[in-house]
Every structure is written in structure tokens, then in C-alpha cells.
């Protein structure tokens, strides 16, 4: 992915990495497990696996809009996964995941890239109006969630009691 070449596109592409103290093959298996994407992406979109390669994404976007797309995994190497959205996506996008050995006994470096290519009408509104979570935050949090899941089997959460009142169970 070459988002950096076009500064105007920067906000619509994002890359982040985390190091996880587990071997790459175990992490790859976990990423591909059917309930992983729905769990680690829940801050961004609802993901529903259709089959081993295809997943259905839907997102409540700002202005009461719902955005939908399907992704399909195109490349499945031992150190690399890549996917793109299928025809008819509300917001065409592509993503890739890279596994590389971390130095010493630190495990595996996991790098996630995403890029969104909204159609002309949508892009004029800017990324903040398009998504409630910007791509930078989307990848970062997905990776933190993935690391937590890989190491502890759970994803840290305070929902539904982040606070006593606002957003709490009393709501």
C-alpha cells in the first residue's frame, strides 16, 4: 500500500503495528478464526463471516447512514494476508496483514494496513463525516484488541459500565 504518496489520501489510509509474544502461525490461525474479526473490529463495524474468505461488514456511520461492504481474502501466505472489498461496496477498501519475526524472544511483529477509497460524493465530506472511527484509530485499536485476545483470550472492556450514568447500564 502506498498511501504516503498522496497526502490528500492520508486520512483514509492507515498503518500500525504491534508486537505479540506468540509465534506467527498461531497468530495467523487466530486472525482467520471465524469469531476473531467480529470481536476485534467491534469498535468500527459489525463483521459477519460468510465463508473462509468472505466477510460482510456493516457500520452505523454519522448522519444516520449505514455503510456496507463485503471483503474477500485474495492472498493467503504464511506471513501475509491481503483482502479487498467486492463490487457494490458502499466504501471500497483494501487491507493487508503482515507477520514478521520480532527480535530476540519477543514473538511476532504484526502490521495492519487499511485503505478506503470512497466514491466521489462521499469523499468530499471528509473522513470525520464518513466514519465515526477514523482509519488510524480503527487499525490501532484492532491491533491492540488482537494482541489482548492472543495473549489473554479476552478483550479488555468496560461496557456496559464505563461510568455510573452516561453510557452505563442505567441507560
Amino acid at each position, binding site marked *: 500500500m502506498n498511501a504516503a504518496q498522496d497526502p490528500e489520501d492520508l486520512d483514509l489510509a492507515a498503518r500500525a503495528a504491534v508486537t505479540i509474544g506468540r509465534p506467527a502461525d498461531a497468530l495467523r490461525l487466530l486472525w482467520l478464526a471465524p469469531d476473531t474479526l467480529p470481536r476485534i473490529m467491534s469498535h468500527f463495524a459489525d463483521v459477519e463471516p460468510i465463508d473462509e474468505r468472505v466477510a460482510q461488514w456493516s457500520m452505523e456511520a454519522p448522519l444516520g447512514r449505514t455503510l456496507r461492504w463485503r471483503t474477500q481474502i485474495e492472498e493467503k501466505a504464511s506471513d501475509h494476508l491481503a483482502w479487498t472489498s467486492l463490487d457494490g461496496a458502499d466504501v471500497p477498501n483494501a487491507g493487508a496483514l503482515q507477520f514478521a519475526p520480532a527480535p530476540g524472544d519477543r514473538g511476532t511483529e504484526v502490521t495492519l494496513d487499511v485503505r478506503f477509497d470512497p466514491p466521489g460524493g462521499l469523499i468530499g465530506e471528509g473522513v470525520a463525516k464518513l466514519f465515526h472511527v477514523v482509519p488510524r484509530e480503527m487499525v490501532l485499536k484492532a491491533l491492540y484488541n488482537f494482541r*489482548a485476545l492472543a495473549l489473554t483470550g479476552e478483550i*479488555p472492556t*468496560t461496557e456496559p459500565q464505563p461510568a*455510573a450514568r452516561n453510557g452505563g447500564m442505567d441507560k
Partner: protein
Amino acid sequence: MRALCWNGVNDLRVETVADPKILNPKDVILKVGLSTTCGSDLHLIDGLIPTMREGDILGHEFMGEVVEVGAEVTKVKRGDRVVVPSFVSCGECFHCAQEQYSLCDTSHPKPELAEPILGYPTAGIYGYSHAFGGYSGAHAEYVRVPFADVDCFIVPEDVSDETALFISDAAPTGYMGADFCNIQRGDIIAVWGCGGVGLMAQQSAMIMGAEGVIAIDRYPERLAMAEALGAVAIDYTKVDVVELLKELTGGRGPDACIDAVGMEASGQGMEQAYDRVKQALYLETDRGYALRQAMMACRKGGTLSVLGVYGLMDKFPMGMIINKGLTLRSAQQHGQAYVPRLLEHAQRGELTPAPLATHRFSLEDGPKGYDMFKHKTDGCLRAVFAP
């Protein structure tokens, strides 16, 4: 249940809120036995640490009884009387493996709030703003504790509730601060601040074999408590602290200096005026007198152990560190690394935190307790709440 909630700067209220539930399989629910105020809460109450939301439950220093256990909890059982360190730590990640529990990689539910400020998120903390995870705090009848097998420590029968309470935060923080000093034979340790953390740092330095401990504060009752622990006490409003420390150490300066004051430090004179104006304008959240004084007083090649909490301070005299070859050590407390040892010290009578509990309140009187703690009314060192 009833809980003590933050509603805005200097606005605490006790409210009825929903009971916490098990959310993840390694969680337990604790029936809070005792919880207490900490100097760190003052930063939240004073509005110096942002990202609090109305209705957030405060409290990160607590002990209690396990009443509900998640499906994957194997060691902790219903009915266990436990103490829990302030930071949520998973026990599985790179940092937990190195006993850097407050740096846990996996326990922060909102890393996107912390990463822009610090580069990487810390561990989550109970009741300590959303940038630190947004976990509900322990000034309540019940509190949810994640990673219970790692974070709950069973309190031995011969350790009282009050002693166990402070082994949640004040004691491990002070002990870690003394541990940072790598105390050698003949070392003299100076500690700024005689609140719960400072007093525990002083006692820990003695446990670790310091030749002498010098305690600095301005409140007579706190200085008297330091003396009762065996420290030499100094009132910083009455003397030139740096000169006196030189005098007390044969001109060498203390081998290590511990800052147990933090960003609400009070000072005197011009420096105070400068810092106060900036803090009032929110240009700068920190008043660093104690820290700057500690740097000046510390002997060459000595250790500066910073426990006091700071924001993003400017006007930091880096030249002191480089020219004097000081070692700077600092962290939020890695409680899980120290709790077992501290419980043993308490059993042997070497660690005596219970006297920190100068005032006891029902949870309903929480706002009054915080007010007395903040203003040190009636010699209040720590307000302890029993729901």
C-alpha cells in the same frame, strides 16, 4: 448499589447506580470491604487530569470479599478476602512478564485515548479517568476486578482489613520507590511528602536497610508520624531544605531522593507565583517545587525516585540530571510485584500502614471524607470508606 461519583471539578456525589457484572471470563466481582482516598484522586478532583466523565466512580485503593467468579477464574474463590493493586494487569504480556505491571499491554480498554498523549497506553486503572482505561472505581459497594487470578491477593488471617487496604496502593508505591533507590550500606534516603505514599516509602527504605531516612513536609501531624516511624522530620516552610540536608549528610547530600509529592506540590516565593499562575490558566498542570528541590539536594551520582504523579511538565531542569549524573527512576506502581512481600512484612510487624487510616466514614459521607482529605482537616491523612 451506592457509589461515590465524580460529577465535575470539586463535585463528588454518592449515587445509586447499577451493580457491576462479570464481563470477561477472568473477572470477579468484589464486595468492597474498605476503600480509601489517594493523593492521585486529587488530580482528578481538581481537574488536572482530563477525560473524566460525569458519573465515573472514583477509588483505586481497596480490599474486599470475592462474591462472584467468572468462568475462567481458577485460583480465586467466592468468599476469599483479597487485596487488589490499583492497576489492572493480565500477567501474560511482555511487561507483566518483567513485573512492570502498571505497563501491562492488554488491560487498557481505550488505548486510542492514551496513545496520542503517551505514545503507548499504560495498564488500565480503577476509577482514574478514561485516558487510563475508564474502569469503574472501588468507592462503591461492589467493584469488578478483571484478571482476578493475577490481580487478587488473598489476605492472611493475621493481617487486618486496614493493613491490607494500603497494600493495594500506598504501600507498594512507597516500597517500589525505595526499591528504585537500590539502597546500599550507609545510604541516607530523603523523602519529600509525608502522605500515605511518602510514609510508606520511608518505612520501606528502613526495611531495605537505609542508614537514615529524612522526611520532608509541612504538616506537624504528618511529620510526627514520620518521626514515629524513625525518620528525621523536616518542615520545609521553616528551614532551607537543601542546606539542612547537606548538614545532615556531612555535605554529601542524600544518596537517593524520593518525590512522594507530585503536581500539587506547594512552594514559596517567586517560583510558586510563576507555577501557580500557569496552573490556574491550565498552561501547565504541574507545580514542581518538591521535584526541583530533590534534584538540587541529591548527591552527585545519586538516584531520583519519582513517585509523585505529574502531567506534561515544562521547565524541567534537565541540566541537574546530566551534570550531576543522577539516575532518574519512576513508574506508576507495579503492585503485583510487591504485594506478596508486603503482606509478609506486615505479618512480621515490619510494615505498619494501618495508622494511615486516620479517619473512617461510611460511603455515604464520601464527599465529606474527600473534603477533609484534600484540606487535611483535623489531621486527616487518609479517609477510609466502609460501604
